[in-house]
């Protein structure tokens, strides 16, 4: 177990009377991806803004490399790379110049900058566009450039805020590969995303927050198991026994009976699945392993939101 390159303890932030982040702990180790998840308004953005240093926490402490952020701000900001959700590329410059100008905002200066820029252009498949304006890039390549720019100064921690939002499936997979590669290179990555498959596949650890609080955290499969159990059954809208199955499951203590577009989705244990098969052998349903979509639906219901 390597030590955390980023650690935050007891982070709290309020705006007026509203507590947006409520005594939140998190950590990220080198060579791992921490998936930070939560529904809209959960406090993800405020958490990130505190970690970037945009806003100070009301309470709590942030450490980068074991040193307090508030006391070693310049050194800590040299250690972090940020790829925001919004496109903040500098369209007054070419693709290569974007990397060069961004590097000028860091001290100590990036060693062998020309070589570093060439390396990044090559690695992110941007070399053919080096002298072009970012205007000519597709959405996927804009995202590549944003990520390349955020690591031009060789940070230790990289924040990726919804890095694949708006990308087509092929471009998403390309970005996944890049994230996987950066993790292999030893970067600690904090990833926020609304795509549950993305979080599940890329994250070594998950932190799910709701109303600014840690709802559940840990390795993805443990997080899912701890909330949902072994299986999810899906009963189609057209199944005549649908309501009877739902009632039967509720009687057996199932709390998370969700309806999605008329389908019934219920997490069940092995024992419940065996009993269900015996009781409703004539009915039609599907069984699959639970995923983060199910987790989100379950957590939303647990916290009183409709699905």
């Amino acid at each position, binding site marked *: 177990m390597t030590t955390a390159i980023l650690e935050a303890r007891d982070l709290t932030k309020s705006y007026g009377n509203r507590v947006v982040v409520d005594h939140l702990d998190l950590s990220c180790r080198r060579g791992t991806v921490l998936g930070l998840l939560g529904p809209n308004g959960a406090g993800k953005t405020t958490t990130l*803004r505190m970690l*970037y240093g*945009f*806003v*100070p926490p009301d309470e709590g402490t942030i450490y980068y490399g074991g040193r307090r952020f508030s006391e070693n701000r*310049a050194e800590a*900001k*040299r250690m972090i790379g*940020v790829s*925001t959700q*919004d*496109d*903040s*590329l*500098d*369209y*007054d*410059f070419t693709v290569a110049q974007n990397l060069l*100008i*961004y590097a*000028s*905002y*860091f*001290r100590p200066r990036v060693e062998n900058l020309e070589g570093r820029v060439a390396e990044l252009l090559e690695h992110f498949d941007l070399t053919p566009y080096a002298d072009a304006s970012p205007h000519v890039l597709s959405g996927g390549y804009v995202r590549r450039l944003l990520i390349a*720019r*955020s690591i031009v*100064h060789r940070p230790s921690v990289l924040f990726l805020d919804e890095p694949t939002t708006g990308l087509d499936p092929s471009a998403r997979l390309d970005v996944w590969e890049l994230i996987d590669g950066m993790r292999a290179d030893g970067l600690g990555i904090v990833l926020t995303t609304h795509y549950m498959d993305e979080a599940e596949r890329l994250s070594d650890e998950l932190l799910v927050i709701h109303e600014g609080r840690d709802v559940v955290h840990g390795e993805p499969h443990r997080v899912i198991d701890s909330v949902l159990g072994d299986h999810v059954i899906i009963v189609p809208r057209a199944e005549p026994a649908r309501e009877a199955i739902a009632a039967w499951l509720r009687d057996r203590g199932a709390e998370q009976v969700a309806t999605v577009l008329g389908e019934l989705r219920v997490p069940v244990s092995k024992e419940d699945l065996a009993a269900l098969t015996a009781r409703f052998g004539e009915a039609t349903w599907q069984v699959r392993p639970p995923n983060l979509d199910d987790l989100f639906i379950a957590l939303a219901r647990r916290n009183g939101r409709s699905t």
Partner: protein
Amino acid sequence: MSAVRSLTAVANWRSWAVFRRNALVYLRNWRTAVIPPAMEPVIFFLAFGIGFGGFIEDLDYRGTMINYATYIAPGLIAYTGFGTPYYEALYSAYVRMFYQKTWDGILATQVELPSVVWGEILWGAVRGMVNISIVALVITVFDLLGVVDVRLEFLVFMPMLGFIAGCAFASFALIFTAVVPAIDHMNYPVFLIGWPVSLVSNTFFPVEPQSAALRALMQLNPVYQLAECARGLLVLGNPGSHLLGLLGSTALFLVPCTLLSVRLTRRRVLGD
């Protein structure tokens, strides 16, 4: 303490990194950035100096008779020294902040917000210097043509005077940049402040208010001080008390406006 940090950020490499970024963009587009500022004073001299000025008798400026074109030559310096940083910090900075998200990208680095504000102030002031240099060249040409009669050796000081006052004008403009909800609302600082101030500051005609309070208020106006400082140097070779007035009024504007700009920009950009 944070006020001191905000003010001393001017000497920080981060502020100059932001300045450098803006300067590099300017240099890439230097043709379009140079020709319009060169045409503006030419048009002013032709329209007001020669055209309108033909109907105006010579004026008594601190005991020296000068023609109207000579009177407005320093006025053009002040007008340019005010307008360039003011509009740069209004429109260009707003575009960088709001539309291009350039500040968001910069703030995700080691550069802190006070440095972004200072980078914009310094850049606005240097753009003022550049445009004043262009105006000075035009004045030189019109002097050689006999249209105006100024002491050319003092023209070299004009860009530096413009830089000093330009810092105040840019910091003042950034307050509006931080608060206007949309770019259309820039009409308020442009038409309700920019135009009136640039006209009632002894730029194109002398303003001599009867009220002592208004006269005192004029002394606090850096545009007026810049115009009179430039006029004193270019006509008489002596700025009189206006050099001190320029430094004092600039400081009076620059310090509170910079602190307020940082505060308001922090709220707008960082949400804090």
